[in-house]
C-alpha cells in the first residue's frame, strides 16, 4: 500500500523570515492523524531568509538529519562543532543525552532551502555526536546512494545512524529508474526534494511524501523534467 502525503496538505508556518512545511505534526501544527511514520517523527521543509535562523535551542534523544537543497546553513553546537552545510552533503546530529545548537542561513544575500528529518533513536541517552560528509553530485545520479545506515550495516554508507534505518538519495533524469526491495516487515517513506517522480506508477511532485507498507518492490522513475528523492527504509 502506498499512502501519499501531498505537499499542499502539509502543515505550514510563515514567520516572514521562515517559510516552513511540516509533513508531520511539529511546533504549533498538531494533527493527530500525522504524528509520524514508524520511527520517522519529523520531516520539515524550510526556506530561511538570508542571515536569519534558529537561535540556540536544545534537543535530546533524536537523530536529526539535515539535507540542504539550495544555499548554505551555518550550524553551531555545544559539542564545539561549527560548520556550513550545503547541497550534496549529509549532516546527522545525534542528540543523545542532550545538545544545544543553532542554525542560521550562512548567506546575507540568498535563501537556504532544506529538509530536516528527525528519527527516533534505538535507545535513549547515547553520547551526542555529529557527522557531516559531502559526496559528488554524480554519486546520486541515476542510482540510490546510501547516505546513512546503522554502524553494523553490510552496505557501506556515508554516515551512521543510531536506528535500524537506511536513508538513500537518488537524482533521476526523465525516464531514469531505480528499484528498491523492502524486506518483510520493513516499511518505506519517499520524500520528493525536487522535481517529479512516479513511485510504482503513482506521481509525486516536489514536497510530496509517500508512506509505503506491504510493498516488497519499489520502482521510482523520473517524470516531468526528472526529480530527486530521499528514500527511507524503516523498521
Amino acid at each position, binding site marked *: 500500500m502506498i499512502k501519499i502525503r501531498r505537499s499542499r496538505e502539509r502543515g505550514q508556518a510563515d514567520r516572514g523570515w521562515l517559510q516552513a512545511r511540516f509533513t508531520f505534526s511539529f511546533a504549533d501544527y498538531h494533527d493527530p492523524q500525522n504524528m509520524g511514520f514508524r520511527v520517522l517523527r519529523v520531516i520539515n521543509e524550510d526556506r530561511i531568509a538570508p542571515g536569519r535562523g534558529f537561535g*540556540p*535551542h*536544545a534537543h*535530546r534523544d533524536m537523530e536529526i538529519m539535515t539535507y540542504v537543497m539550495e544555499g548554505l546553513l551555518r550550524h553551531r553546537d*555545544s559539542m564545539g562543532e561549527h560548520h556550513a552545510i550545503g547541497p550534496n552533503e549529509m549532516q546527522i546530529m545525534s542528540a543523545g543525552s542532550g545538545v*544545544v545548537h543553532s542554525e*542560521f542561513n550562512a548567506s546575507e544575500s540568498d535563501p537556504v532551502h532544506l529538509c530536516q528529518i528527525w528519527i527516533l533513536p534505538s535507545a535513549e541517552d547515547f553520547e551526542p555526536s555529529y557527522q557531516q560528509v559531502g559526496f559528488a553530485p554524480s554519486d546520486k545520479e541515476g542510482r540510490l546512494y546510501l547516505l546513512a545506515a546503522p554502524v553494523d550495516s553490510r552496505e557501506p554508507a556515508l554516515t551512521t545512524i543510531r536506528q535500524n534505518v537506511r536513508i538513500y538519495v537518488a537524482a533521476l533524469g526523465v525516464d531514469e529508474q531505480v528499484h528498491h526491495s523492502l524486506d518483510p516487515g520493513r516499511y518505506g517513506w519517499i520524500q520528493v526534494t525536487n522535481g517529479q517522480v512516479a513511485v510504482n506508477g503513482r506521481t509525486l511532485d516536489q514536497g510530496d511524501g509517500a508512506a509505503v507498507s506491504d510493498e516488497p518492490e519499489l520502482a521510482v522513475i523520473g517524470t516531468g523534467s526528472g526529480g530527486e528523492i530521499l528514500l527511507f527504509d524503516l523498521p
Partner: protein
Amino acid sequence: MTPMTPVHVLLVFQSRTGRTEKLTLAAAVGAVQARADIRLRRLTSVREESGEHDETLDRMLREYVPPTVADARWADAVIIAANGKIAGLSVDLDAAKAYGKQIAADTRACLDSK
C-alpha cells in the same frame, strides 16, 4: 504512571568574548541531560550599542534575544551568568543584577497579589 512535567530552566548570560556563553551552554546541556526544558537568553549592555563590534559579538547579537519577564514567569529555575571579576566589564554585572532585580520585583508582585 503520569509522565513528569519537565522543569523549565531559564539561562541568562552576559558575554562579549563568548567565554561566558560557553560556560552557559555547558550549564544548558547539563539541564537538558537532567531532562529540563531550557531557554537561553543573552543580556545586552549599553557598550554594545555604541558600535563596538567583532565577529563573536555580532554572532551573539544575531543568535540570542534578551530575556523578558515572561521568560522568568515561564521558568521554574533561573541561572544568571555574568563576569563579575573584571572591573572594566562591570556593566555586564550591572545588567545581570538589573535583570535579577526585575525578576525579584515581579515575583514579589505575584506573591503580593495572592
